[in-house]
């Protein structure tokens, strides 16, 4: 039996270390609608935390705040225990956060290489691209982070890739540019079953290699396979945070259904 409370929800702790990133006391209203009410959320090192809840629970709003797109009415954010300002996308990136979107958000008419470096192109003093460096780095990224079958050139246009491959490129880009927190906002909703498998595997690998992930999904099966911990929201409030080892898929489903 789980109780709804507006105070800080009971959090299961396995590591006493300072969380990598923390959101405390977050509240947000849109007019009469209270999207988030005094929500706490944290991301720990080397973990994949699933942000779960039914539609309207506030997951999307919370993620947008972490990305710097939306500002909370109340609440603070902490990176490694130190308060940070993530009120713009740039600041959120500076705090080490990168968002991966459901619709992949790569420019389809551009090559993989150009997409990877879009907005952070390595240039000489006149602004001209360092093509060789870009190409080499791009190939390195594809080899190291994302072993995608059949992609042997960074000049392939993104529109030639399958959904899963493109999403993998987006993730690889985020990781390469040293973001240690990945926000994955329903990254597999638009993908086929097979592609989803691949992306889930990538996420697991990432967590093991030191990148923490926040996995937002309403698909509990996926969440259960990939996440170490679950943070559940309902009606804009914290409901529970549990380690995977302490719960089961059925129990999770029950919790969400009850709220």
């Amino acid at each position, binding site marked *: 039996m789980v109780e709804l409370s507006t105070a800080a929800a009971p959090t299961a702790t396995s590591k006493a270390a300072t969380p990598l990133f923390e959101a405390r006391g977050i509240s947000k209203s849109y007019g009469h609608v209270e999207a988030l009410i005094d929500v706490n959320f944290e991301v720990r090192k080397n973990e994949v935390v699933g942000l779960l809840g039914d539609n309207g629970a506030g997951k999307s709003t919370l993620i947008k705040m972490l990305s710097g797109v939306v500002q909370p009415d109340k609440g603070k954010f902490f990176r490694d225990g130190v308060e940070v300002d993530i009120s713009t*996308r*740039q600041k959120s*990136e500076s705090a080490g956060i990168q*968002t991966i*979107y459901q619709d*992949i*958000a*790569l*420019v*389809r*008419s*551009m090559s993989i290489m*150009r*997409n990877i*470096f*879009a*907005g*952070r*192109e390595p*240039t000489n003093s006149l*602004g*001209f*691209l360092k*093509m060789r460096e870009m190409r080499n780095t791009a190939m390195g990224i594809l080899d190291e982070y994302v*072993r*995608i*079958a*059949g*992609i*042997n*050139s960074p000049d*392939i*246009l993104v*529109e*030639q*890739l*399958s959904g899963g*491959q493109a999403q993998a490129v987006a993730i690889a880009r985020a990781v390469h540019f040293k973001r240690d927190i990945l926000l994955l906002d329903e990254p597999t909703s638009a993908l086929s079953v*097979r592609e989803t498998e*691949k992306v889930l*595997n990538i996420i697991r690998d990432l967590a093991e290699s030191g990148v923490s992930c926040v996995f937002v999904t309403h698909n509990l099966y996926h969440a259960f396979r990939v996440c170490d911990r679950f943070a559940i929201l309902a009606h804009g409030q914290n409901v529970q945070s549990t380690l995977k080892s302490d719960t089961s898929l059925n129990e999770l489903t029950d919790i969400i259904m009850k709220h």
Partner: protein
Amino acid sequence: MSTSNEPDVARRYAAKSWATRLRNHPAGPVFVVTSVLLAGCILAGLLFGGDFNFLSSPNTSLVLRAIPNFGLIALGVGLLMIAGEFDLSVGSVYVVAPFAMIFAYVVGVPWLLAIALAFAIAILVGLMNGVITLHFGVPSFITTLGTMFIVRAAAPFIVGYKRSLVFKAPPGWKEVMTGKTFEVPNQFWFFLLFSLLAYLLLSRHKIGNHFIAVGGDARAARFAGINVIRTKLLAFVTCSVFATIAGIFQIMRSGKAETNPQLFIELYAVAICVIGGVSLFGGRGTIIGIMLGAAMLQLVQDAIILARLPGFYLDMFVGMMIVVGVVLNQAIKKRY
């Protein structure tokens, strides 16, 4: 991690025959058509001699001078289209900026300052187009339709209702800009130069990457940290600047500046770009395609004139080529 069902991108991307690569390149079709056309014209010139004077010196000069005229404008329009916007006001800038320059020059403003004035006007118009489109959310096709007429209307007020001004440029300028080098008109060399600059900007410069990104998917570009508004403003200004350059070359050639509008030159520029493989939806296009498109249009016009066909064929042809060009572009896209 690979399964046999994964789309085999490698196989598709493996070294292909040059024919396939040509077909898939955005500028492939226009290259083929232009080459065929050129070959045909040369052949006809050789076979029919006097009846089809393609290879004669005056004709080649004519063609080589005409290509840069539309080509320079098309370069600017094309870069802007790749960045995802349209500019229908280029025809007005093409006429008005050089006219203002000559007007200033004729009343005593130093030549270089007058040139600077022309570019100042170009930048101003580009910014105006950009601000109205981006800040007020008016589709650029509509904005520039409006500014096309606004700029034309403003011109007589600025320059006092004169319709044409004859002028004499400072020594050397006319020779450099309109003379010949190695039998080829200098305008054409300049066109090649500006095309090279445009290519370097588009494919080898950070700004070019931003153009392609914001034109291909402005949202994705924004998420990647690219300043979409600043990039598009730059594209608008670039477009007007290229139009001004074209206009300046034109008045240097004719020796007089006029306020008579060159009718719908902007639509020809769009046609050239479309024929040359630039996508109407943004994010796609090559400089070489635009150059070839300009060449093709001029070749067709020249062939029609030489064959003494009635002039309306050109317009009908341009109309069809626009449609065909876009259809081909769509077909290329569907390849994936």
